[in-house]
């Protein structure tokens, strides 16, 4: 388990090094969407805050310089990334390119898509819940582990094709996958936790 995870991370790093154009695209979106204002404004704060945010920025957009440098050189970009469409809570479709080996949670965060990730992908929460919009793609995914199912138990607005974004990893056969982010507030009213008597 650990080994496979480690190798996956290694793979991810290698892929991130070689991907191109991708960061540039995400930056463009970054400035267009209103939700990014908050993040930008938080970058213009106190010096220490900026440094802190800077480190986060670096972490999430790791090696962005080399990546965009590669944009001009990399010709086989198509093979390195797949097309993924997130459908936001408002129903807005957000197409992105995701490098093979990267989780949908990480991809969403790189692209400033509002997908929560409270436990940072460590399978200890259900906040990165996404709904795979086509059964055909859902069936291409490996079955969820017991641990993922334990978390899906707690996801709001669970559906037949629900998965955790941190557990879907981009692979060639997932090219074209569409993922809906559940509209939580609506579900909260319907499925809200009712205090249980003991």
């Amino acid at each position, binding site marked *: 388990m650990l080994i496979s995870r480690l190798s996956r991370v290694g793979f991810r790093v290698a892929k991130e090094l070689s991907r191109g154009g991708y960061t540039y695209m995400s930056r463009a979106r970054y400035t267009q969407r209103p939700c990014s204002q908050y993040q930008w404004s938080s970058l213009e704060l106190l010096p220490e805050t900026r440094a802190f945010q800077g480190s986060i920025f670096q972490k999430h957009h790791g090696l962005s310089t080399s990546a965009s440098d590669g944009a001009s050189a990399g010709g086989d970009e198509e093979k390195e990334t797949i097309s993924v469409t997130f459908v936001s809570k408002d129903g807005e479709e957000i197409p992105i390119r995701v490098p093979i080996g990267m989780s949908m949670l990480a991809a969403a965060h790189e692209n400033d898509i509002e997908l929560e990730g409270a436990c*940072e992908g460590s399978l200890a929460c259900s906040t990165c819940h996404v709904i795979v919009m086509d059964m055909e793609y859902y069936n291409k995914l490996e079955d969820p582990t017991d*641990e993922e199912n334990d978390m899906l138990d707690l996801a*709001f607005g669970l559906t037949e094709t629900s998965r955790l974004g941190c557990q879907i990893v981009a692979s060639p056969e997932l090219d074209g996958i569409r993922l809906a982010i559940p509209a939580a507030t609506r579900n*909260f009213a319907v499925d809200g936790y009712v*205090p249980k008597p003991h």
Partner: protein
Amino acid sequence: MAIFRARRVLWRSFSTVSSHPLRVCIVGSGPAGFYTAEKILKTHQGSQVDIIDRLPTPYGLVRSGVAPDHPETKNVINQFSRVAQNGRCSFFGNVALGSSISLVELRELYHVVVLAYGAESDRVVGIPGEDLKGVHSAREFVWWYNGHPDGRNLDPDLKNTDTAVILGQGNVALDVARILLRPTSELAITDIASHALTALEQSSIRKVYLVGRRGPVQAACTAKELREVLGIKDLYIHIKETDLKITPADEEEMKNSRIHRRIYELLSKAATAGPSRPSSGQRELHFVFFRQPDRFLESYDKKGYVSGVHLEKTGLKGIGSGKQIAIGTGQFENLSCGIVLKSIGYKSVPVDDLPFDNQKGVVPNVKGRVLSDNSGDPTSFENGLYVCGWLKRGPTGIIATNLYCAEETVASLSEDLELGVLASTTRLPKLGRDGLLQILDNRNVRVVPFSAWERIDKEEKRLGSLRNKPREKLTSWEELLKVAGSE
């Protein structure tokens, strides 16, 4: 939707050009407080958000509730600390609503006050013997092992008995059972409070009973927690096979609830998986279903101390809509033990001038808007006063529940701003942060800002690294305030 958006944009531009910011105070820095802060900062560009907490440390139950052996669950602290470092957000610890500053004063100082201070008390069972020594609430026990400064003096007696009874079968009950039964070598590398680790290392508790009023189909825990306690190294698990028999009503309940179905499957598997008897000296976990406490028994030789629980057998009765409740059968039995931990639910505590529903233990509200009274009139609201988290919906759910809860409260707030409900107050400038700090200074309250918490954080991590722990928590008010105050 489009109109709503346009309005939001309008409001945003209005609030940016308007000369004074929207001043918001959030009381409580747990998940409900921080998720609320994050969403207000994001939705209202012209807002300034102050979060106050009665403790010198932020993060509420993520720090003092989440079990020490669940470090992944605490990762959310990273997200919350980024919120606290937003230039429009401030954290002020060691500021208690009610004693440092009153609710009336806060509402004078801020356009909006959001109460998210959770539930710091306990439901009582309400049976004889509840005040015997050795009967504790699980909350106190959790505070104790998590190093909460108000929990360090609990000093539970784990040395004079081999048996603990836990009332309740929710996640808190399972956490407590796991902490009592898990090898201490595994706890030693967590951020568990050192006084608790020492006591657990010397503990003679070998048998833990988890008592539930209803059956395995109704258990209130989640699968992750159950899987974990069932997987403890070298632990004998006992579940009566007769308790696993299910009725058509149970089947119906499971059909409607994925989580109850999976919990039942896990328990069924565990009942048959292990050996039929414990090996000598092996630690034991017993699931006791269909029993409700009738009274706590006093020890003969140790006056004033608990020596067991008198339990009544129960059966289930349908109350419509697929729900079943426990009904006493009039048959009783005793369960001997030296310590009882009641894990039957937390309870919120009201403050002066706050409408409060004592029955439900929550602040009466509609989607987070505080109602003026309990009379059921859903139209009379407290202007500018909102509620989120356990204080709003009762003490249930997981960290993520607060995310949706905060979304709902902030949506109400945004709507009130857009529709002009709050216009009369937001038009006027408020003193906000400066006014708050002035009052606190006059009262000699030693405010602990986020930078001072960071000193505590750094010191705890330093002390932890000396003992191969991620953190060694400072567990007394004196220590916390001393480190906070050291420049």
